[in-house]
């Protein structure tokens, strides 16, 4: 049977090639959509985990894009008095408050990636939370230790490496897992170390001097509440503390999720239309094959092929074509996904995490199975009609070659 199927496909090579290409494009698009969807979903989830808070509080004069601040991990060089952290902790219903201090290097002096790098001073509680998000994470940092984003330093980005920041030597404690955000390009350190760096740098002085001594400043507060239904109320109380701006994570998360869903819907619709188009195309192809080759099928029946064997032959041909097309389409789809991924990563404005090998394999296997099913579905009807052909038809027909 395999011989008959292979022969049939190879002898009608242009027809087979056209079908293969049609299937390949569909399967490729589906795989790309699948990977992009999961990349977005994981990115958003990591962003939410990374934030670990219900509210983000920044100085009132900060120009903040909530999406970038919350989920893209983009820090801002804005400052407010650190007293707000203590005052926020006193508000009833507030479970946890974490302060962060943002600054920047001018460029990495050694092992430089050639761009300015964000430095984020974090409290021990943040360190503990980040440790849970990384395989080799540690719960406490020494004053001269840093955590480095996944995309910085290349080969040097491994625990124990030494880097120089604004004239000071730091040891790399561990690297973060990819988040698909600006955090991948950031360096995190104990909050007092970040303050010291900013205070001792003449180049950075213009950034903070209007706000006062860096040791008395913070850039943002991450606030977690006991009861999410009281978010609005607590948000108002935080804003009452001073000239502060409060961003609600849930709102931003939902808005971003809706945006992502809309984007994914367009991609999924394109994928679904391609899959449906594939079914229609293959159905047309195999209906036509059933009609065009009925002389051949009738001969097979006359020479002893059973009805199930006829169904196997027609469906087998369809499934082989669909699978071969899907196999060709998978690298195309992966290439398309990589292209989209590169564009999205370059913008750094949307959380996106590259799906791992398991998800990639699952996507590829899913596309193969789906197209095998599409092949089966599109050939089942024609195959049943072929199986019903009267073998006597072969007595009345002319030569079939």
């Amino acid at each position: 049977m395999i011989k008959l199927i292979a022969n049939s496909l190879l002898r009608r090579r242009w027809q087979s090639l056209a079908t293969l290409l049609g299937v390949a494009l569909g399967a490729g698009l589906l795989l790309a959509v699948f990977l992009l969807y999961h990349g977005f979903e994981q990115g958003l989830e990591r962003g939410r985990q990374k934030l670990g808070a219900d509210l983000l509080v920044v100085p009132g004069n900060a120009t903040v894009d909530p999406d970038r601040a919350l989920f893209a991990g983009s820090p801002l060089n804005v400052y407010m008095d650190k007293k707000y952290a203590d005052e926020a902790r006193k508000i009833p219903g507030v479970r946890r408050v974490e302060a962060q201090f943002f600054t920047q290097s001018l460029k990495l002096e050694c092992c430089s990636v050639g761009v300015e790098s964000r430095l984020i001073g974090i409290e021990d509680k943040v360190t503990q939370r980040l440790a849970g998000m990384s395989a080799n994470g540690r719960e406490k940092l020494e004053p001269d230790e840093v955590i480095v984003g996944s995309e910085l330093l290349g080969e040097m980005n491994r625990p124990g490496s030494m880097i120089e920041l604004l004239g000071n030597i730091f040891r790399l404690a561990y690297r973060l897992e990819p988040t698909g955000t600006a955090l991948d390009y950031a360096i995190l350190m104990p909050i007092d170390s970040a303050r010291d760096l900013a205070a001792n740098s003449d180049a950075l002085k213009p950034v903070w001097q209007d706000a006062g001594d860096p040791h008395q400043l913070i850039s943002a507060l991450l606030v977690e509440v006991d009861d999410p239904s009281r978010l609005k109320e607590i948000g108002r109380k935080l804003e009452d503390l001073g000239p502060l701006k409060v961003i609600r994570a849930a709102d931003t998360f939902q808005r971003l999720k809706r945006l992502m869903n809309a984007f994914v819907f367009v991609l999924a619709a394109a994928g679904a239309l391609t899959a449906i188009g594939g079914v229609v195309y293959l159905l047309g192809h195999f209906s036509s094959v059933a009609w065009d080759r009925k002389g051949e099928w009738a001969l097979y029946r006359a020479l002893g092929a059973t009805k199930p064997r006829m169904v196997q032959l027609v469906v087998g041909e369809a499934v082989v074509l669909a699978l071969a097309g899907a196999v060709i389409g998978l690298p195309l789809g992966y290439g398309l996904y990589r292209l989209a991924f590169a564009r999205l990563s370059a913008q750094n404005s949307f959380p996106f995490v590259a799906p791992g090998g398991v998800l990639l394999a699952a996507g590829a296997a899913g596309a193969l199975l789906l197209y095998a099913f599409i092949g089966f579905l599109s050939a089942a009807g024609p195959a049943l009609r072929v199986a019903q052909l009267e073998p006597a038809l072969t007595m009345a027909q002319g030569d079939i070659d």
Partner: protein
Amino acid sequence: MRTPSQILLEAENVSRSYGPETILANVSLQIRAGEVTTVVGPSGSGKTTLLALLALLLEPSSGQIRVAGRDAGKLSDAERSHLRNTFYGFIFQTAQLVGSLSVLDNVLLPALLAGKAREKRTAARELLDRLGLSTRADFLPHQLSLGQKRRVALARALLLRPAVILADEPTNDLDLRRAAQVADFLLGLPADGYALVLVTHDQQLAERAGNRWHIQEGRLTPPSRGAAVPPPPAEHFVLQTSTNETP
């Protein structure tokens, strides 16, 4: 091995109608191992329909067909298919070769359909050799002449050593020389124990074959007297054909 004169195939009062039109009426016939049965008649007399009924390609409207003693009407589709694959060898009016398969694979087609092509490969090559086509094994049908195609169809019919060979106008469209070659080969088969059912309007072939049944307007008349099958000379099994014969 089948014993000579063993009844392999039997039609008893078989009729076949298409709507109000009766194509065959109350046909009774016995096909025996090692014998030729020739059916002659004008075009449209029901010859091909009779062959299709005997070959289990069609079902009779009434009457009974027995294959090796079994009532064909009670067989399942799978059993009928199996019989068509192993019990019968078909030679159709046209060669009916599959254009996408090589000559060798066309000969192997019944085995390919039965899933035993590998074990029949040597037999297929031997048959092609006997029929003077060994150098054409890898050709495609469109590269063959009409006579060569007919011989490929002959090889395909014999591949699984069936009990009954059904030949429908086997010399149709062939020139005299090639028609004689094909006839020689076919008429030599009963000596090997095959039952040969020959449907033809080629009077010369019918006379050589003997045991002539006449069919006219769907009614079959037995031979007036038994005609012995002329014993074929041994060399008839090898067709002397030039290998550079052009299509």
